[in-house]
């Protein structure tokens, strides 16, 4: 009965303004594959970071029992010493080093401070056999594909004598063949007595491989399903993931929909880093004036990539397809072209891509269309002040004046500055990528009101969001994107969280 290798009790983790985990319990039996499911932002990764010591003891509440002992990890090295190894979604390999060097990175096979290369490569070879990777240990990691790199990560974990292996979205970047191989390997490790915790969005995989499934939603434990007792369907898992009452309130909105403002046809984008990988495949969608259209998709589905490639080819290579603005086909090669054709893109990562954090509100608002405030190349800074101040009042940016530095504003106010910047360009089409990420509930409501007002003013809006209730509450029509393909289009009346989630996790026939 008491054969749990891991027990996490009443884990609560709070970030400034957000409660990421609330009283979560997790029990993992020795030698099982335990899946953790939930929407983006449900708290899966946070829970694993608490477990592996990324968030050290003391920064969370609750207690962790591993192998019968109370454990208090202060960093990752601490948890690795106990045999808990986490493999993150973004692989942590040094591309220029060899496979063997990566496997023993920080764990070198050395004698008196000097690396024993024969032993290193010999042991690496044995580990590669174990994970079924036929490559020479001296090959550089940069020269093998992502699927094989994933196997190197697992070999690296095995080298540390792993007892609990945590995999965060291990198959997200893999093709079917590599995924199948990886899942077989995990089954093999289970035979060897290695316990696995796997975070995955691919529910068919989860249903086929896991012994138990724990479902998180909004930082809370919903349920733990025992698949040994009775098998579950994907629909059953989806119901657990989304079954939430609409706790956020949305401002009422009566749409007044006009003519088509933006149409994208047969849009295909390739990855700029991985040669030949298709990130967006033959996508076709349209947005009309006065309409708020949602774009739903799980992490890695290609939502941001689609938006940024449309916005002046800011992402991707080898882009093909057609863009129509107000019914006319247009060529958009640069961001300036996009702005000139009345398209705006408000990024999902305001701090990295949206704002000049060391500058004031005024200069951030004017940044995308400074020419409008200038005569013969000279900026009228009084006029600039007036415009910025108008936005401060209209959008309710809470700051003493428009001369306040944007880096010091709260997330919601920063987002209003970003929106002001794009509204100022007089764009007809606004693509808003995660417009309420990292914003508290009250400010979300204000952002929704602004979006509704823009629609009422005849703008066409394309909203990308990970929060399904947000899309359901805000949008008139929702497209779903899965693995780079548009898998569905639902009118507001037909859309439910369950239907969206089913479309978002739908695997495409290849």
């Amino acid at each position, binding site marked *: 009965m008491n054969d749990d290798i891991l027990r996490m009790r009443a884990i609560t983790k709070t970030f400034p303004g957000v409660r990421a985990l609330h009283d979560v319990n997790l029990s993992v039996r020795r030698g099982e594959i335990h899946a953790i499911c939930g929407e983006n932002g449900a708290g899966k990764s946070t829970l694993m970071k608490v477990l592996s010591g990324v968030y050290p003891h003391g920064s969370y509440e609750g207690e962790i029992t591993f192998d019968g002992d109370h454990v208090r990890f202060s960093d990752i090295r601490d948890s690795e010493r106990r045999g808990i190894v986490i493999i993150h979604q973004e692989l942590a390999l040094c591309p220029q080093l060899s496979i063997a060097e990566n496997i023993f990175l920080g764990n070198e096979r050395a004698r008196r401070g000097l690396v024993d290369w024969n032993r290193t490569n010999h042991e690496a070879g044995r580990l590669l056999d174990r994970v079924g990777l036929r490559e020479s240990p001296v090959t550089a990691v940069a020269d093998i594909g992502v699927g094989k790199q994933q196997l190197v990560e697992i070999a690296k974990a095995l080298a540390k004598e792993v007892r609990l292996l945590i995999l965060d979205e291990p198959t997200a970047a893999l093709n079917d063949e590599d995924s199948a191989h990886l899942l077989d390997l995990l089954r093999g490790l289970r035979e060897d007595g290695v316990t696995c915790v796997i975070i995955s969005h691919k529910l068919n995989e989860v249903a086929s491989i896991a012994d138990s499934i724990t479902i998180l939603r909004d930082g809370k434990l919903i349920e733990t399903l025992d698949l040994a007792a009775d098998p579950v369907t994907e629909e059953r898992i989806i119901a657990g993931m989304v079954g939430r009452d609409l706790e956020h309130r949305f401002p009422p909105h009566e749409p007044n929909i006009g003519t088509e403002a933006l149409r994208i046809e047969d849009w295909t984008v390739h990855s700029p880093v991985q040669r030949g990988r298709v990130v967006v495949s033959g996508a076709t969608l349209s947005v009309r004036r006065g309409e708020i259209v949602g774009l739903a998709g799980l992490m890695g589905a290609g939502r941001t990539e689609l938006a940024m490639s449309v*916005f*002046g080819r*800011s992402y991707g290579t080898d882009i093909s397809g057609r863009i129509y603005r107000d019914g006319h086909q247009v060529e958009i090669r*640069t*961001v*300036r072209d*996009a*702005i000139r054709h009345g398209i705006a*893109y408000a*990024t999902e990562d305001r701090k*990295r*891509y*949206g*704002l*000049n*954090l*060391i*500058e004031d509100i005024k*200069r951030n608002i004017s*940044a*995308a*269309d*400074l*020419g409008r405030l*200038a005569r013969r*190349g*000279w*900026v009228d*800074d*009084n006029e600039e*002040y*007036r415009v910025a101040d108008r936005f401060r009042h209209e959008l309710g940016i809470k700051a003493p*004046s428009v001369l306040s530095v944007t*880096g010091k504003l709260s997330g919601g106010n920063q987002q209003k500055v970003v929106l002001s*910047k794009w509204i100022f360009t007089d764009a007809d089409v606004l693509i808003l990528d995660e417009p309420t990420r990292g914003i508290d509930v009250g400010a979300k409501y204000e952002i929704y009101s602004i979006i509704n007002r823009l629609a009422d003013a005849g703008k066409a809006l394309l909203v990308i969001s990970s929060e399904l209730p947000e899309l359901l509450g805000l949008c008139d029509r929702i497209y779903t994107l899965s693995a780079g393909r548009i898998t569905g289009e639902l009118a507001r009346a037909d859309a439910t969280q369950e239907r969206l989630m089913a479309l978002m996790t739908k695997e495409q026939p290849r």
Partner: protein
Amino acid sequence: MIASLLGRSLNIRQSGIYIAFALIVVLFSILTDGALLQPQNISNIIVQNSYILILSIGMILIIIAGHIDLSVGSVVAVTGAIAAVLMVEYGLPWPLALVITLISGGVIGAWQGYWIAYFGIPAFIVTLAGMLLFRALTLTVLGNQGIGPFPDPVRTLSNGFTDGYLGNIGLGPLGGADLFSLIVGALVIAGMATTQWRARAARLGYRQSVDPLPIFLLKLLCAAAVIIVVVVQLARFKNLPWVLILLAFLVLAYSLLTTRAVFGRQIYAIGGNLQAAQLSGINVKQVVFWIFVNMGVLAALAGVIFAGRLNQAGPTAGNAFELDAIAAAFIGGAAVQGGVGKVVGAITGGLIMGVINNGMSLIGSPSERVMLVKGIVLLAAVAFDVWTKRRATR
């Protein structure tokens, strides 16, 4: 009450540099028994540092954009050599030779700007290569010797003074002073006061907050006092140095460029957040390319002035000038990460180093001690900047 007003309107991070400059001037005035502020010495400080100050104007733009230029010393040398060959060996009229030299500087800047902006090589590497390349080119052009002497007008531009067009006027105990210089000084003060007042009135018209009147007047008065002291002392010596007039023009033009022009504002946007600038439709490559072209032209101007001052173009001209120009920019408040900096700050930074050089040589300090002090001042200035920033984000 005045202290609280001062505290509110004087941002320590922005005005710290001017206070530091004032303190350094006072310190060396005392240490040198007033020799620092003697008419001839003020003139010397300006003329001796003019080329570094010109370079620091170009450098601050590059540093604001988040880049660096290590080649300016070598560019000063090669453009000085080009000017010497054109004027002395080919006997071209000096204005034509000057224009060709400035264009050569622009071409050099375009060469480096191409590799940095369009080819994507870090500026550190490109200009480190340029440092070697253009020094090599200088040695090739000059052989191992200097070329001179330069025509008189060029020497006057570097070294000379305005004529006493209107004769002298008695200033009581201060003795005779050049009337023309005094009138120019008065006009500068009047111009400054009117534009400041108009700007203040316009901002009030837009209901923006401005400095309270006493603070506004105090700032204006301080600036006017500095100008009066400098101009009177110069008028008592040999009138206004031509390079001072040139510098004043450049400072005014580039201050306007950085604060008011779309182009200047784009430099700050790029240095503040490159990706955000790109996603705001700013043509980053083009802006970066042109600030390097601009640096080349200014380096050529400095090259001609430096050669004219020595009256010959030499193979070692401009050695380590890049370091002085970079130090001036950072002492003057530029941020290492880019996005922050002012033309006037860089000029003040350059003058701080100039005053330290001059003051320490007046009291007979050996050059190793001068270097030591300059090193400490540079480190202290940047440490102060980092410290205030860290405190502000807390």
